[in-house]
Structure formats: C-alpha cells, structure tokens
C-alpha cells in the first residue's frame, strides 16, 4: 500500500485529527486482548456511516485490507490487522440513536459501550440481556462481530438472539440494511450470518437490538464446594431436574484467590470451587425454586450457601466473577484463555483432563466459566516474555481444544476463531464444511479485503 497516498486520500474523507499514523498509534492499534500482535498502516476514526462507506470503497478500489475495531477486547486476534491496511475504529460512533419501548427495540451506533446501554435501559425498566464479562469496556459492534455471550446467556441466549437488524457497509462501500424492527422478513437471515462473522463479511454502522422488560425479581446464590467435581455435578443435576436458572457460573480456587485480592467479593479462599446461581423472572414461586436448588446443592455436598440479601450484595458477588480475567494479572502477567464448549454433562471429565494437561506442560491453569452451557474458560497463566513457557502454553491450549472437540463440543463458545484458533477449525469441520463457509465469504466479500486471514484456514 502506498501509505502516504492513501493517508492523504483518507484525510479528505475523515474529519481532521481522526486519521492516525504515528509510530505510537500504529503500535497501539496492533493488539487486542489475545496474545497475537499485528500492525496497521493507518487508523481512522469515522464519525458517520458515510465516512465508513467512503473509506471501505477506497480500500476496495486499492485492494487494501480493512479491520473494524471496537474497544479491542477481542480474545482471539480478530481485531489484529495481520496484513497491514486500515483499522476502522468505531469509538466516535457511540450514540444511542433510538429507544423504542413500544416496539421493544433500541438502535445504537457500534461504538456504544455495552454496559452503558444496559444501564440506560435498566433505568427505564428494560433489559438488553447479553452481558459479556467485558461489558464495561466492550462495544455493541464488537459484541456483534463476536456473537458475545456472558453469564445470562444460559437463559436468554447470546448476542445473535438479540440483534434484529443492522445497517451494514459491504466490501465495496455499498450500504444496506438487513433485518429491521419487524420480525420474519422473508429471504436469508443475513443479520444472523453477520453476527459472529468477526468483521469478515461487513461492518455494522447501526444496530437494532431487542429489549425485554426487566425481570420483576432476582435471586442470587453463591454455593461453596470442597471439590470441583461436586460443583460440576450440581450443574448437571439442576438442569436434569427441570430448572433452567438465569446463570450457572463456576470459579475455582486459583481464580478466587486472585479475585479476592483485587475485588474483595467475599469469596472463601479455602474452597475448591463456587457456583453463582441466579434465578430471575416473576417473583411467584421463586422461593420454592431456590429451595429446590439448595436441596440439589446439598445432595452434591455443598459446604455452604450464601443468598444475596440485596442488590449491593448481588453486585459484589458479580464484581468478582466479572473481574476475574483482569484479576489474574496479580498471579502472572499474561494469560491464554481457552473457550471450548462441551455438553454440560461432560464437564467433570473435561475439567479433570484440563488439570492433567496443566500438570503435563507445567503451566498454571485456573477455571472461571459458564458451567450452565458447558462453556469452559481455562485460564492458562504465564509470562509471555518467557518464550519457552509461551510455547508450552500454546500446546496446552491446543490440547484442551482437542479434548473439547472429542467430547462432542466445539472449539469456540464465545470468543471467536480470529487468528488463534484457525488451525483447530479442522478438528470440527470437514473440507466440505469449510468450503460452504468460503462460499458465504465470497458472496459477501469477493475482494477479500474485510479482515482477511481470519476464521477460515487457507485452502
């Protein structure tokens, strides 16, 4: 790419001060929350859909890669520019455009921070349900790109179940709307394809989200266990008895220790594992459901149970869970988080194999995850400056994904394939399967300029 020439032309499209190309800028926007590193040739901060459209049209004509970026909290390298090109950073496009309670929708620009949206909706008695742990920092656009999950997905589904439509800039700068405020438009579910496409099919510039009335009542339980096995058996038992709580999260001792030092959520430092079980909905019958859950916990040797008395206690319990990834920095400076998902009945077996892998490669592994939907997050803790340790960590992570695939699960529950897991795609997809996905990519982006080199292995 003729950097200088392109930068000049971008400066004619984008407002002054929002085309970045200093050494520091290019370094800063070449990383995300994964272990991957890249380097763009220029970063632009568009202010409008038209800006994005003109930038992408230019990139298409000049065959320059384009990588969309929200807050860069991506965990699999999806936000890393690996082939140079233009990073399109959505931080300026951060307005909530339309709150439409009667139609149960809210329309936002992609740079809106997820927690900000949720707080705004809760103030009006409504809920935008997906709550990825990164919500304080991550953006709706990023959540759309990754099809983000979060603890409440057990009951409410993931981001894609809450995206009704989007205004999208296609590979050549064309702008189209997919979906809308009405449901059941005939045709192909392009919105459904876009969500989780990691910026490789189009860039969303406006997003219509579904909102629901906030639940009338919430009960949050912390269940404390002497063994990881008892905790994971409880998870299966709760589902087997016909209860689908709003959340079923697990943390082990290593994680709790790190969290207590940083967040002081009140987790017991001598327990092997805790479950955070939340019920929400109509208040009627909730006490009885909570009793049933307590019975199940007791049958599985729970050591102690705490019920959050009020919202303050509830927030404290959750602060610990949501701060987990950040807290582990106290133990080691780097982490590799795996994102395998397995059928929940396989959890006890898979968790014990994960521990074995830790021992085999001599690496520290902590577990914090969405036990209710079998979405593990073994956090492998290390120091990336130790190249030998980094290599052992990559091997351990790859072996963990293998176990998940063997157990009938998948290699990414919510963090995306990005760069990091491209080589594992063949664990779960045949060449024919990958071929079908390549057809979709070609249909959307025949020029292969949108976040190239991600998700799909080369042929």
């Amino acid at each position, binding site marked *: 790419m003729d950097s200088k020439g392109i930068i000049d032309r971008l400066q004619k499209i984008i407002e002054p001060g929002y085309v970045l190309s200093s050494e520091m800028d290019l370094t800063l926007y070449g990383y995300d929350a994964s272990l991957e590193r890249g380097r763009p040739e220029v970063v632009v901060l568009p202010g409008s859909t038209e800006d994005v459209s003109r930038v992408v049209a230019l990139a298409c004509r000049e065959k320059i890669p384009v990588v969309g970026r929200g807050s860069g909290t991506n965990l699999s390298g999806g936000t890393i520019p690996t082939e140079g090109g233009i990073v399109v950073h959505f931080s300026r496009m951060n307005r909530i455009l339309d709150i439409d309670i*009667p*139609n149960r929708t809210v329309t936002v620009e992609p740079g809106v921070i997820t927690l900000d949206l949720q707080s705004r909706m809760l103030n009006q008695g409504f809920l935008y349900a997906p709550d990825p742990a990164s919500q304080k920092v991550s953006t709706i656009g990023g959540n759309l790109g990754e099809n983000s999950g979060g603890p409440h*997905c057990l009951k409410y*589904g*993931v981001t*894609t179940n809450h995206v009704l439509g989007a205004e999208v800039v296609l590979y050549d700068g*064309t702008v*189209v709307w*997919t979906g809308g*405020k*009405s*449901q*059941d438009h*005939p*045709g*192909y*579910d*392009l919105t*459904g*394809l876009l969500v*989780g496409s990691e910026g490789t099919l189009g860039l969303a510039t406006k997003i219509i989200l579904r909102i629901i009335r*906030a639940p*009338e009542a919430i009960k949050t339980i912390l269940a404390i266990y002497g063994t990881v096995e008892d905790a994971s058996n409880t998870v*299966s038992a709760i589902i*087997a*008895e*016909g209860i*689908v709580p709003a959340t079923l999260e697990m943390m082990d001792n290593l994680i709790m220790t790190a969290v207590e030092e940083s967040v002081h959520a009140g987790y017991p430092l001598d327990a092997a594992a805790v479950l955070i079980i939340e019920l929400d*909905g*109509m208040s*009627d*019958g909730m006490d009885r*459901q909570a009793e049933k859950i307590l019975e199940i916990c007791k049958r599985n040797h729970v050591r102690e149970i705490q019920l959050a008395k009020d919202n303050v206690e509830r927030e404290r319990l959750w602060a610990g869970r949501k701060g987990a990834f950040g807290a582990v920095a106290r133990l080691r400076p780097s982490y590799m988080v795996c994102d395998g*998902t397995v*059928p929940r*009945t396989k959890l006890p077996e898979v968790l014990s194999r994960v521990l074995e892998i830790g021992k085999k490669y001599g690496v520290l592994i902590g577990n914090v995850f969405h036990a209710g*939907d*079998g*979405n593990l997050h073994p956090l492998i803790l290390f120091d990336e400056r130790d190249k030998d340790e980094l290599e052992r960590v990559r091997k351990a992570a790859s072996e963990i994904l293998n176990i998940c695939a063997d157990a*009938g*699960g*998948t*290699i*990414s*529950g*919510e963090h995306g394939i990005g760069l990091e*897991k491209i080589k594992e795609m063949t664990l*779960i*997809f045949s060449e*024919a*399967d990958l071929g*079908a*996905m390549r*057809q*979709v*990519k*070609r*249909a959307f982006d025949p020029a292969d300029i949108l976040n190239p080199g991600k*998700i*799909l292995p080369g042929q």
Partner: protein
Amino acid sequence: MTTNTYRLESLQEIVGPEYIKGDAETLSTYSVDGMKPWAVVFPGDIEQVSEVVQLAGKEKLALIPWGSGSKIAMGNPPVRVDLAICTSRLNRVIDMDTANLTVTVQAGMRFKDIQSILGTLEGKSMPHKDPADRGEKDCFIPLSPPCIDSATLGGIIAANSSGPTRLLYGLPRDIVLGVRYVASNGEIIRMGGKTVKNVSGYDMCKLMIGSQGSLGILCEVTLRLLPLPERSGTFVSTFASLSQASSFVDLLFQTSLLPASVEILNSRAYEPLRPDAAAELKAGGYAAAVALEGVQEAVDRMSSEIREMALESGAKGHSYIQEDQHGVFWEGYSNLVPGLSGSYPDLVSFKLNYPISRYLEVIELADSLISDRSLDHALLAHAGSGITMIHILLDQGNTSDLDRIVSVAERLLDRCRAIGGNLVIDRAKPELKRRLPVWGLSREDLMVIKRIKNQMDPLGVFCPGQFVGGI
C-alpha cells in the same frame, strides 16, 4: 423419453426401485402450483439424498425437497420442477440427550411424533398428560408451528415456521443448534453442534433457517429443548369489538407477567376452536387467547390478574382452559388452516409483519378492506410479535373474487411496507400468485441474497424461481 429412462434407472440404483414413484396419482400429490414432477424419490438416508442431488447436478434437474408438503404452497410458482425428493423415510431420532437439553432428529420426522416421544420418556402421553404423572425429566421442543399434524422438522426449519409461543420461547433461530444438509453439489455439510454457545465459523444454521430449500436439503437438525413447564393453562376472553380486545392486550403488555402466548382471533378463527363458546362471539367480535406456562404460583397469579384485566376491558365472556384441554386447544389452533382448507379448498392466506406496536392499525385496515369487498376471512394475530395471518375464505371455483383479493393484498402490502413491514402470500392459486408479489417487496439486501444463492447453488438445482427475487 430416453433421457428420463436413463435418469430413472440411475435413481433406481440409488434408492431402489420400490422407492421411486411415477404413477399419475403420486405425481399429482407431489405437484407444486400445478406443476408435476416426473418422478418422486424417497431416499432412505443422507447418503442417498447426496447421490440423488449429485445426479440432479449432472443432469441439470430441478429438485423440490418435500417433507410433508404442508408449506409447499409458499413461494412463487416454480420455473421448473423435475424431481421431488421426499424425506419421509428420514424419520429417526439420531440422538436424544435430555440431560443436556438437546435432541437430534432426521428432517423427515414429524414434529408431533418427536414432541410426544420427548414427553413420554416414562411412557406417558403428550400433550394431554395428567399433571400428577409428569416426571421431572420430561422436555419439549419450544416451538408451536402450524399444521402440527403433518409438518416435519425439516420443513418447519426451512420455512422458518413458528406459532403463538414464539412470544416466550423464541423462533427457530433461537432453537436450532445444528444441521446436516446436502448442498447443491451433493456434499454433505455439517454446521453447528449440540451447544448453544458456538461461534466457530459462520453461523450457517441461521442461513438455512427460512431458506425454503433453496440452498440445500436439510437431513438432520439438532434442537435445544426445555424442561416441560410445571403447569399450563389458557385464558380465553371474548369482546364485542377489536378495540376492546386490544385494550386488554395493551394492559397485559404493560405488566411484568410472562404469558407464553397472546393471540387475537376474529370470530371466523375462533369458531372452529371453541364451537360451544362460538355464540359468545358475534360477527365483529374478537377473542383473545392467552397461554400460561410456568411454575404453579406464577400461572395462578397470571390467570387471576389477566381475568381482572379482561373484565376491566369489557370482556363479554371468559373461561380458563385447564391443563388437560390446554394442549387440545392449541393443537386445534395449529390445525386451523388445514381445517379451514377442507371447507374452502381455494383458501388464500397472507402473512403480514410489522412493528409490534402497529398491530391495531394493521388489523383494522385489513378488516375494513376485506369487508368493504364483501369477502369473508379468518384472522389471527400474534399480538406481541407483530405478525398477523389472514385467511380469505373463498368458495371453490370462485374466480370473480380474485380482483378484490388482489386489491386487498396491494393495499395491505403498501401499508405494511410504509411502516417497515411486509406482506407475504403463504397460499394462493397460481393465477392469483402471478398477479401479486408473493414475497412482498424486495429489500436492499437482495443483492447479497442473490450472491449467496449464486455461490451455493450456481446451477439452480434447488427450487428454481420460487424464492425472493425469483432465485
């Protein structure tokens, strides 16, 4: 014809001579908008489906995937029909994993059959169970599609079929976890899996849902299950006017109650469901049916508060349908169209979609346009979803009404489009379909839709011409 003899022989080699039919009666049954295939094949497994599709590609045949044919009336009249592939022999359960709340079935399995198996893990029957017998492990697929007596899972998913309980449990896109299908080149493709959390690669399941067979033949689907609700029942109330029924519905949606469905029905839709209670509802009157599913205490509270709201809105009559009859009522609802089409074989069905809050305006317009033209119709609305279904009760052989129906459809389509919705013809004779945009008006994303079809079915093997934009 020599070419067809060769093809017939090749098909016989794939599925066996007893599983390919070419008699006049069969060809008539498996026709689409009056166009007959020259043979119907009944493959026994996904590999046979794959071989048939490969043959079709080589021989440039147009294929129609066929489950039970309950939705075959949807879509533009096909450009061409050569072979119908019926999935009736693909009717087994592949994996039943209620502990993990998933089930995988072959696409030709009837929805009713899998639903009763799930509810009979300990040998009891569904949906008319005695609650005292219900075991804790019983589950259900949280869908309530129309034509429940015949619809197959493959067809339901391909048509994005849904029903009243979408309000609480969602749509096929919220329930399908994985699929196996045969692509246009005969390759067997597997997408998704058994887990809800799955972002590996593109979400191709979403692409297959609602694709009306235009991208591949669904052979297996994996679905999310839910545990059966502890209690269920239905509150039905009748009103002298639509505006009273709508006050009731609006009151209900202002609360934090969580009904499973909120349906608005006109008298012609209500009569077949409640023949004893039909006298309550004179012409012009409207009924509201609210399904309640959940824990005992929540269902009790909902039925009592909802009764208050109905009375407050001027309900003329109301009743509570208990658990054992609740399933019967909603089965009747699901079978309404097959039932009506018995008396009115030339039934014309529209499906309107629009933003939720505009339902009253849409229904009022529909009612006035239709009655102005002296037509008769059954109307059902999913009140909280922005969907209304209208079935024009056309006497058989009556062609003089076609102009009037076209005029109604055009006006309604205009209004729905103006407010961000659409109107689709779900069922009509070919001569009527040719006079209207069957899929409503195209949207700007059609260009991407066409590119996807071109990539995935470049030869136009599947249902050519039937889908949006004539793809």
